[in-house]
Every structure is written in structure tokens, then in C-alpha cells.
């Protein structure tokens, strides 16, 4: 066996050893991979008023200015009563036209104790006339069936609640004012949030 043969054998052994060491070294690393994706669906948030009905009157109140509806307000209604028992009501819808369920977070309906203000012709809120009117004006906003709205009521996406607003001169009133009394603050506010 010549020298070349010996050298070749030695070289072969060294090469195998080197490869072995490399493989051993390479094997001592490990990559762990997490791979994911997501998407966000196109969504819309759209809760609004719609379909304001014609005024329905009991008695002969004079609607000085009819109610007007925009997307998020029903306003401008101005009605003049002359006798107890008169009333005017409007039906309307609260619509969730979006893709997200809504929840009634807060509802505020003014009352004579809070928010409704009666002022007589001389500007007084303390006169007997003013107080009598305030005691006998009834302002209400309910579901169409007469049930009250409650905080936490759910309005699902693409759903509608039928409602109505009513302003009434209490039929139980035993007197009428001797002068014109203006009633302000017949307001209701619905605050909807994402359910």
C-alpha cells in the first residue's frame, strides 16, 4: 500500500470527521415558527331615526310646527293645546342599519321634574299658570305598543324598533291657564353603543 493510499485514507477519515462535526453542530439549533393571519370585515355603525308618521291628534290641538326628522333627530314640533285631554302623537322608527348590534346605553326623557320648563306670557316659571301647565303636560316616548324603553335594550343589526312620541294635555287637568304658557324641553335622548 503506497503512501498515496495512506494519505487518501487519512484524508477520507478527516473529511468524514469534519462533515460529522458540521452535521452535529448544525443539528443543535431549532427554529419554531408561528404563522397566522386575520381580517376585519367591512362593518358599518348606523343607528338612526326613520319613518316619522303623520301627526295623530286627539281633540283639536294646533300644530304650529310639525315634527321633522333627520337621521338622528326628531325636532321642531310645536303644538298648542286649548283643552285637557288633547294630545298629538307621532310614530317613528329607530333603525339599526349597520352590521353591528347596538345596545341602548342610556335614555333620558325629560319630565316636569327634570328638563321640562313652563313659562307664562310674562316669562315667569313660578306663576300659578306656569305651574299648573307643567303639572298637566305629559310628554312620553315609548315603544309602539306602549312599553317603556329600558337601558340595555338590544337593537340587533338590521333591526328596527317601532316607537311613538306623545304630547298630552292631561285629561285630568281641572283648570286651564289664563294666559299662554310655553312649554320647553319636551326632549328625549337615546344613546346607543356597540353591544
Amino acid at each position, binding site marked *: 500500500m503506497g503512501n498515496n493510499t495512506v494519505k487518501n485514507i487519512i484524508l477520507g477519515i478527516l473529511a468524514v470527521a469534519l462533515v460529522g462535526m458540521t452535521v452535529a453542530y448544525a443539528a443543535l439549533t431549532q427554529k419554531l415558527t*408561528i*404563522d397566522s393571519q386575520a381580517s*376585519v370585515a367591512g*362593518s358599518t355603525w348606523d343607528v338612526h331615526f326613520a319613518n316619522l308618521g303623520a301627526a295623530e291628534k286627539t281633540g283639536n290641538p294646533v300644530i304650529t310646527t310639525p315634527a321633522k326628522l333627520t337621521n338622528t333627530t326628531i325636532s321642531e314640533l310645536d303644538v298648542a293645546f286649548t283643552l285637557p285631554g288633547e294630545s298629538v302623537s307621532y310614530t317613528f322608527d329607530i333603525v339599526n342599519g349597520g*352590521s353591528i348590534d347596538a345596545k341602548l346605553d342610556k335614555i333620558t326623557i325629560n319630565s316636569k321634574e327634570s328638563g321640562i320648563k313652563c313659562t307664562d306670557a310674562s316669562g315667569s316659571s313660578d306663576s300659578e299658570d306656569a305651574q299648573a301647565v307643567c303639572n298637566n303636560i305629559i310628554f312620553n316616548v315609548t315603544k309602539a305598543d306602549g312599553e317603556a324603553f329600558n337601558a340595555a335594550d338590544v337593537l340587533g343589526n338590521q333591526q328596527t324598533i317601532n316607537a311613538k312620541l306623545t304630547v298630552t294635555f292631561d285629561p285630568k287637568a281641572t283648570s286651564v291657564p289664563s294666559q299662554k304658557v310655553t312649554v320647553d324641553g319636551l326632549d328625549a335622548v337615546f344613546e346607543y353603543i356597540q353591544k
Partner: protein
Amino acid sequence: MSIKVKNIVLVVLLLGLISMTVAYAALTQRLDIESTAGINSLEWDVHFANLSKGEVIGSPSITEPKLSNITINGLDVEFTKPGESVTYNFDIVNNGTIDARLDTLKINTKEDGIVCTDSNGSKDSQDAINVCNNISFSVTKANGLQFNEGDILSSKDTINAKLVVSYNGDLESLPTTRVTVKGLNAVFEYIQD
């Protein structure tokens, strides 16, 4: 010296030699240490395990991820409103005989790696930007602590971890058209400690 004396001296010397030999022999003690040794075959085995079912907040639509030894992939979450999320628990296991060390860790962020594209293919639309600003992707230890490069995973040890994908923001941040989010990726590279 007479022959007799010589003989005696010889005997004495012989006896002394024998004695010394015996004594020397007695003063030697062979001490043997016997042992055996071997080289155990080394095992390098760091992998994922025990992927849980998703814990969901809200009503996202989910294609569940799959776990193979070294990958967790295939998760696809579709969010419909802010506040939704999905969480998966999983383990990183060192079942080998060699301690491991987390050499590099890359968790993609919106600044690096996460790409949001709207239905027109745009990454620059307000919808795409809003979604990227509000998507959250995290991979942490199960107690919420961050992984750090240099963390040791000893032989036969396990780290409990969790992966959370969520959509935050508010209603105004919702896109008007579908936005796709790619690159919710994390890569752990362990080496021998």
C-alpha cells in the same frame, strides 16, 4: 575471614535479601481503580406541544391553527367589531438531553412584518391604516411575561406560552370594506446552551 564466617555472612545476606524482598513486596500494594465509562447519545429536541382550543371574546370567525412539531400555523381570524380576540395556549418543550437557549426571537409588529390590505389591494387607504393601527398580535409566556433572547429552556423542561390576536379600537376605526392582515408571525430560534 574463615569459610564459616563467610557462610554465615552469606546466609545473613541472603536472609536479608529475602527479607528485604519480602518486606519490599509487603510494602507494595497494588491499587487498582476499575471503572467504566461511556458517552451517552445526545438528544436535541425542542418543539411545540399542547396547543389548546381558542378562547374567544366576541364572535370572530376562526379557522383553527394546527400544530406540527415545529410550527403553529393556519390560524385565520375574521373580526367583525372592536374588542374581539382569540387566545391559544401552547407549550415549548425541551425533551432532549441538551439545555437550550433562545438565541433569536422575532415577533412581527405593524411596524415590521404585519401588512394590512384593503379589498382594493391598497395598504395606504384609511381602512387599511385603521386596521393595522388596531390589530394586536402577541406571543408571551402564559403569565404574560415577555420572552427574551437568552432565556434558557433546560433539558426536560417546558415553557407554557400563549398567542393572542385581537382587534381593538373603536367603532370609528372599523373599515368600510374588508381588510386582510398578513404576517401575524413569530419565530423562535433555540440553540444549545
